């Protein structure tokens, strides 16, 4: 809005000078010229402020529909309470954030794959998650070492993208949430920078809770064979 005010007054000053028949020379000799200069300066300030306001206004980013198959695969040997907790996590994430895919790997096996997953080559089946490969990859190792959440707001900029083949190819943003030191949750979103800071904090708390729940149940089970 100040742009219009500033621009209009700029033109008005020049117009005023023109119709008053004064020579268009910008020297500060006559008081008229000085007054003109000051007004011009004010007009320019307004224009610049308007530009600053424009940049503050949020730019809307459109979500990108992820390409892949819908799936809901949960490791079958989990007790009911853990499954319902996982389902609650998925329900909350998909309702509140822009998360469209969720994969949880714990103790070297893929526990959960919900949402949209990439298609397997040629078949209409979701791409199976190779937990061992993921855990050896640099993304997982990095997250494990730092113990903190990693947010890749614009996935196309990251070379680590190749380690997540199970996510739809046009996933826009990814959050890697470590679950203690035994697992990782991979959340795929459909908007660049779609996860806000408050989402990130909530996800880290949910990650802690999931880790506590899974640790309790995984430790009480015999070692399982990876299918």
């Amino acid at each position, binding site marked *: 809005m100040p742009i219009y005010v500033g621009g209009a007054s700029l033109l008005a000053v020049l117009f005023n000078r023109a119709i008053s028949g004064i020579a268009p020379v910008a020297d500060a000799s006559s008081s008229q010229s000085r007054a003109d200069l000051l007004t011009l300066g004010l007009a320019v300030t307004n224009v*610049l402020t308007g*530009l600053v*306001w424009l*940049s503050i206004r949020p730019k809307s980013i459109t979500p990108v529909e992820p390409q892949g198959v819908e799936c809901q695969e949960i490791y079958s040997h989990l007790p009911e309470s853990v499954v319902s907790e996982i389902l609650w996590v998925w*329900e909350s994430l998909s309702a509140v954030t822009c998360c469209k895919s969720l994969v949880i790997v714990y103790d070297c096996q893929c526990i959960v794959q919900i949402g949209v997953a990439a298609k397997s080559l040629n078949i209409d089946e979701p791409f199976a998650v190779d937990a061992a490969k993921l855990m050896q990859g640099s993304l997982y190792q990095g997250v494990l070492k730092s113990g903190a959440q990693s947010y*890749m707001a614009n996935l196309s900029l990251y070379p680590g993208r190749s380690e997540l083949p199970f996510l739809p190819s046009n996933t826009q943003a990814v959050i890697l949430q470590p679950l203690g030191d035994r697992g990782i949750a991979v959340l795929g979103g459909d908007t660049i920078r779609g996860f806000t800071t408050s989402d990130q904090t909530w996800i880290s708390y949910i990650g802690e809770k999931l880790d506590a729940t899974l640790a309790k149940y995984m430790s009480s089970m015999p070692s399982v064979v990876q299918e």
Partner: protein
Amino acid sequence: MTILTTKTQLLNPLIQLKTPLPLKFRPKMASISARLDNSQQQMNLSVLRFTLGIPGLDESYLPRWIGYGFGSLLILNHLLGSDSVSAAQLRTEALGLSLAAFSITLPYLGKFLKGAAPLDQTTLPEGAEQIFVMSENVSVAQKEALAWATYVLLRNTNTTSVLILTQGELCIRGYWNLPDGVSKDNVLDWFKSNIEETGLSDLRDTLYFPQTADAEFWNILPQGTRSVLVQPVLLSPNPSMNYMGNIEGFFLLASSMRYAYNEKDRAWIRAVSNKLRNERRTWHFDILLQS
């Protein structure tokens, strides 16, 4: 002439979260990006800032000072000018003075922009003590769920006091004003009797009071509460199914800030309330298995 330099700022898209964000941390240069998080999506974070390069100077008030400075120079010019003041000069001066006045009010108008100034900080209610009580007859799983829910709500949102009523069991945490006659043992009874009076247990829809209101249940809330959110815990995932017996209980969240809960906060609180609903289903299932 003053030198104006532009500074573009692009936040690194890889954001590492070492510890949960301290609630009220707002560094100066990134102040605009922090405020903008209130809306649904993350903002485009390249911001054009004009700065004189002088540290410690707040540039957002620059138009105001320029307005004052140039306006006074205009008046000076008018007074000290030549004898005959032409009409054209008067026009210019009038225009200049109105522009100066406009510039002076610009920072004030700028506060109303979307993504403008942050709200007041959370203050702790006076005379309140921190308590954490839970009903006795709750199962271990329910205890954990309640403890986690209250913990996460207190840490992650602008809440100072939280009260959860589910299946007749209470969990209260945070800062509350307890009347003098109430000892530690009677706390739960006191709360229970007060809540029955308010009729909040029959609530079906989410109630949000972003500013101090004259609601009936306000007397149990600590002093200094400015906004309140009451979230019912619904049994069915579809809130339009409104038959009796569908309500589990409710969450009562109080904060000492006005407008404490934005859209996203409320969505997350709804999600946490669904967690307790799920817990109940699981307990029933476990009980069925055992019998």
